[in-house]
């Protein structure tokens, strides 16, 4: 018999989706923000990014080869995404050796010991960022001020959030437009809000993620801040400025669009995603307003990551035929 029939049960065709394609799309969606960072902070950020991605991929390859054993998994590009996100969560003037430590924590502590992609309970990039923030607080919070000439200024500046925490900010006159375009101090990936939103649009168009998590986070932050503002300021203008400030400052947009939406550590159902998003938004604002740290996005995501298994267990999608 020359020809043999091949037998496997239905479905017999497959969509073009693959893990690699999805990860590739996330990388593409992050490129505009990276480009703005290069424009604002200079070529140095590319070095940090390359270092971070290189280390993440290298560590994953080595761990896979010598400890986990089995098929090499770096081709699914997830390590590249982790590396890219980790880099974008660092100040533009971070020493490179800290980047290496971060990559080691992300891959060697937060990801591979659990069995690699798909099994880690916490977002590796955030675990690494939080670890670095606690271990190297000075380096992680000395932010280079953006400079329009494309160079990093010699002195370090406080982030808008840190300034706000210290009570140094005048919300009536703050330059919101500048913040939208990336003219503020912070981790180099989080400053370019417009570029990040462009990436969000791309992810939505490519159906990589759904709107539920980012929108519920942003909406919660805005509502929370507006309510707080309404109680603590006299004019509605100040209150709305306060809300806008909290939306645009720090890592809210980067976190909402790229970190909280990490497939592995976010809920499986749309209802669950909204709960998760509201939780992250609320926790972020609680930490920002009453906590010890000026920024709470990373902590909020980590805390909500730990709730995800519970959400998945109890929040079920609406079954067909069940009451709406």
């Amino acid at each position, binding site marked *: 018999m020359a020809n043999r029939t091949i037998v*496997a049960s239905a479905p017999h065709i497959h969509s073009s989706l693959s893990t690699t394609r999805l990860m590739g799309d996330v990388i593409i969606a992050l490129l505009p923000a990276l480009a703005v960072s290069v424009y604002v902070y200079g070529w140095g950020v590319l070095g940090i990014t390359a270092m971070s991605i290189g280390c993440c991929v290298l560590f994953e390859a080595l761990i896979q080869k010598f400890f986990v054993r089995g098929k090499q998994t770096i081709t699914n590009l997830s390590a590249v995404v982790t590396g890219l996100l980790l880099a974008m969560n660092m100040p533009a003037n971070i020493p490179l050796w800290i980047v290496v430590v971060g990559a080691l924590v992300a891959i060697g502590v937060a990801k591979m010991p659990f069995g690699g992609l798909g099994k880690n309970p916490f977002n590796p990039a955030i675990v690494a960022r939080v670890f670095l923030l606690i271990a190297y607080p000075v380096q992680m919070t000395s932010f280079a001020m953006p400079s329009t000439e494309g160079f990093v200024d010699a002195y370090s500046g406080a982030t808008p959030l840190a300034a706000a925490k210290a009570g140094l900010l005048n919300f009536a006159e703050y330059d919101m437009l500048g913040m939208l375009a990336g003219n503020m101090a912070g981790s180099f990936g989080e400053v370019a809000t417009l570029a990040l939103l462009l990436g969000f649009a791309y992810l939505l168009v490519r159906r990589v993620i759904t709107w539920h998590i980012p929108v519920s986070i942003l909406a919660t932050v805005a509502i929370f801040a507006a309510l707080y503002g309404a109680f603590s300021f006299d004019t509605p203008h100040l209150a709305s400025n306060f809300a806008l400030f909290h939306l645009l400052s720090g890592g809210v947009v980067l976190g909402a669009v790229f970190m909280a939406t990490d497939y592995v550590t976010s809920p499986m159902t749309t209802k669950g995603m909204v709960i998760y998003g509201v939780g992250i938004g609320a926790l972020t604002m609680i930490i920002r307003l009453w906590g010890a740290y000026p920024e709470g996005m990373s902590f909020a995501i980590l805390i909500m990551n730990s709730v995800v298994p519970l959400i998945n267990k109890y929040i079920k999608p609406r079954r067909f035929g069940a009451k709406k």
Partner: protein
Amino acid sequence: MNTLLFTIATLCVIGVVAAIILYIVAQKFKVEEDPRIDDVEKMLPGANCGGCGFPGCRGLACALVEQEDISSLYCSVGGADCMKAVADYLGKAAPVKEAQVATVRCGGSCEKRPRTSTYAGTKSCAIASATYVGETNCAYGCLGYGDCVEACAFDAIHINPETGLAEVDADKCTACGACVKACPKGVIELRKKWPKNRAIYVSCVSKDKGAVTMKACKAGCIGCGKCSKVCEFGAITIENNLAFIDSTKCRLCRKCVAECPTGAIKMIGLAPLPPKEKPETKTETK
């Protein structure tokens, strides 16, 4: 220094209070249980394989302690020695059961049973057998995707890559029956275990008519009945075009082995009988 002492003292107090609460709770909610259950459980092998029909060794231990007559309970993993020890401890009559071994009744190796299609689905016998007949035209034989291997808690059954069939390591097999349940084709049977792992069995479970079986597999039983005619102990029956050797009646005389025209009767650990002339060579098919 003061802070340190204070901290240590606080911790100690908390520890003591917690211990007292735990003790009270443990006393209050103590479940009265026959202490012999624990002892019996310790005597059992602890494999928790479920071969006895209970969810685990503790289940069997409970039943052994509670039931008056334990003749229907048996742990095939522990075997006769273990059961005797348990029965002596409980002062009951030890259940007796002949030693058994799992036997894969399929001889349709890659060579004997031509492949006619390629299975590209999930490598699971249960899924493949729900999809279609399998890679060969025999609807009864071993599929070789190893559901039994996965079910075995004792590493006693493996797929031989050369034949594509499951093979039992009789020394490791405890006759727990997990593989028997896991096999969707019903190929595996628990048979009497002879000394030195000797065995004679029909290595085929095909109920197809002889001509159909022969077309699909050169090693299949065609139900010709020659073996049953030659058997002096009435151990061989033919039903649904298939010979079956009752292992409790078989005496390993080997006469049937020489009669079988397709070699479907398999012999392990025994030398073949000296050849004798056959009166007729025509194979009988139904």
